[in-house]
């Protein structure tokens, strides 16, 4: 590192630069706009999940639940607003608040219970949670039960016919972009803070971390909540795009695995990992869908196996270990 300049922000600058490029591409090439939104969506979720999975090493297979609760929060907010003749901006704000409250409180309960478990037990507990939520909604017919919630009509009422594309494209796309930037910056700030060092210590050796003074219970909990809440906000924006949500999709474990794969692929705990992971993942998913329709999942499963076998620490993570001696690498890969 440069003398006198102790904290180096190279990785943050690269990250922000990448966001700007993606946004410029998105506005200049409308035909790729939706693909780039999908990319930003994956980046935002991967950065949010990175704060928990990447920093602590705890694998939450039920992570999709926080995204799902975000979906539900917005859907409930919008339908409530439309029934009670609130304004469109009130509807969106209400939806976001509900998303945060739902995800935050469920994450609080789960964090309090499951974070006491480690490894496989934690993974199983989180699977149990996402499934319990799904079947509760279906079985007790909460929030529309198995029929889900459809908000297209409500959005038309709130935003008007001519505002519908604003509500379902421009607004969520911008929201997702802002969230991608925000989650990235928050991840970076955590990474260079006391919280970040404490979390990394937990990931490396939880018992030793305790002995060196890290309040592991508190730190894991804080990371878990921040991560869940950020993901729920991405979910709340996604609702506006899909305009209809159903319990099986909202709590589908396959999505959790998708998020895990992206974080893993890039390299957990690194600032640029999610960006790289999300880019590779969403581009290959997009083009597999175009060129090998029907075979995406088969190819995905093989790629996933190869990643697990070849890149244990993710692409950025492997590079980091391999090239750590070089100052430039240490700067870029934080």
């Amino acid at each position, binding site marked *: 590192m440069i003398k006198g300049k102790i*904290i180096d922000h190279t990785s943050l600058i690269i990250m922000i630069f990448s966001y700007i490029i993606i946004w410029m591409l998105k506005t200049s090439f409308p035909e790729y706009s939706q693909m780039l939104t999908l990319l930003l969506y994956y980046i935002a979720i991967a950065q949010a999940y990175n704060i928990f999975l990447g920093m602590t090493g705890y694998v939450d297979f039920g992570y999709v639940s926080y995204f799902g609760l975000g979906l539900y929060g917005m859907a409930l907010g919008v339908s409530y607003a439309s029934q009670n003749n609130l304004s469109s901006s009130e509807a969106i704000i209400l939806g976001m608040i509900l998303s945060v409250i739902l995800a935050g409180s469920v994450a609080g309960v789960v964090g309090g219970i499951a974070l006491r478990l480690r490894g496989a037990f934690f993974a199983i507990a989180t699977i149990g949670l996402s499934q319990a939520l799904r079947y509760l909604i279906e079985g007790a017919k909460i929030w529309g039960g198995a029929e889900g919630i459809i908000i297209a009509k409500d959005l038309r009422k709130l935003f008007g016919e001519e505002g519908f594309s604003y509500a379902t494209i421009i607004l969520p796309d911008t929201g997702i972009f802002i969230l991608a930037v925000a989650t990235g910056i928050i991840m970076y700030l955590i990474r*260079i803070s006391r919280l970040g*060092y*404490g979390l*990394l210590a937990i990931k490396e050796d939880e018992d030793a971390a*305790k002995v060196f003074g890290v309040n592991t219970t508190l730190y894991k909990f804080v990371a878990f909540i921040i991560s869940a809440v950020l993901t729920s906000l991405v979910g709340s924006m996604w609702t506006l795009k899909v305009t209809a949500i159903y319990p099986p999709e909202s709590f589908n474990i396959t999505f959790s695995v998708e998020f895990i794969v992206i974080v893993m692929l890039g390299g957990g705990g690194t600032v640029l990992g999610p960006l790289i992971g999300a880019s590779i993942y969403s581009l290959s998913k997009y083009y597999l869908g175009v060129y090998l329709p029907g075979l995406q999942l088969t190819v995905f499963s093989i790629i996933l196996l190869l990643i697990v076998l070849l890149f244990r620490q993710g692409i950025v993570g492997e590079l980091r270990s391999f090239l*750590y001696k070089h100052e430039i690498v240490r700067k870029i890969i934080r």
Partner: protein
Amino acid sequence: MHLLEVNNVTKRFGGITALKNVSLYIDSGEKIAIIGPNGSGKTTLFNVINGVYIPEDGRIIYMGRDITKLSAHERAKLGIARAFQITRPFPGLSVRENVMIGALFGTLSEKINTREALKIADEMLKLVGLYNKRDELAIKLTGPERKLLELARALAMKPKILLLDEIVAGMPPAKVDEIVDLVKNVAERENIAVGVMVEHVIRAVIRFAERVYVLDRGEIVLSGKVEDVMRNPKLREIYLGTRFKGGV
């Protein structure tokens, strides 16, 4: 008032009683040694003092406060630092980051930011002679270097009491002297009480300590001034009575 008091502590693992009614104390800035053959319970004693295990019986008083049931991280914040016998670096982090974590979560904890923690880390790394390895991943260090990293990380916590478990085991004599002097200097400068645990009775370490406790099969069998204990014939017995091969 003593800095740390261990009163009648008993710790069992299933059928094994690793510590039986152990009592000892250490004063502020004092240097003591705890010796005993392999398996006599030294590491367990440390684990009980710094909160890895909670004893079945007995109490641990630190600065006049009962900390028997306090969690490990709170004890660290109160100034109890530890270097592990089986070294436990955070392997995927750099040497510097390892030591920074000590500074960030030790007694200074909330009082310093990462910038200041980094300065402390560099100081400590210079002190133990690992400064030029600061940007290596900890996993790349050799065995003896890991021991030094343990020491630097513990010192970075700015502790009031430093527990060193077999810190010089397996090092050549010249290196042992060097580390003993180093610890002695820092401890005197910063008024840190030091407890060292050793299996083999290394003269240098015995000279370093003001008092010594001898642990055998979980019990304190001898204690007192170094010269007195060393002259006690019982000491030979303990070591000869075991598989211990070296001389006293």
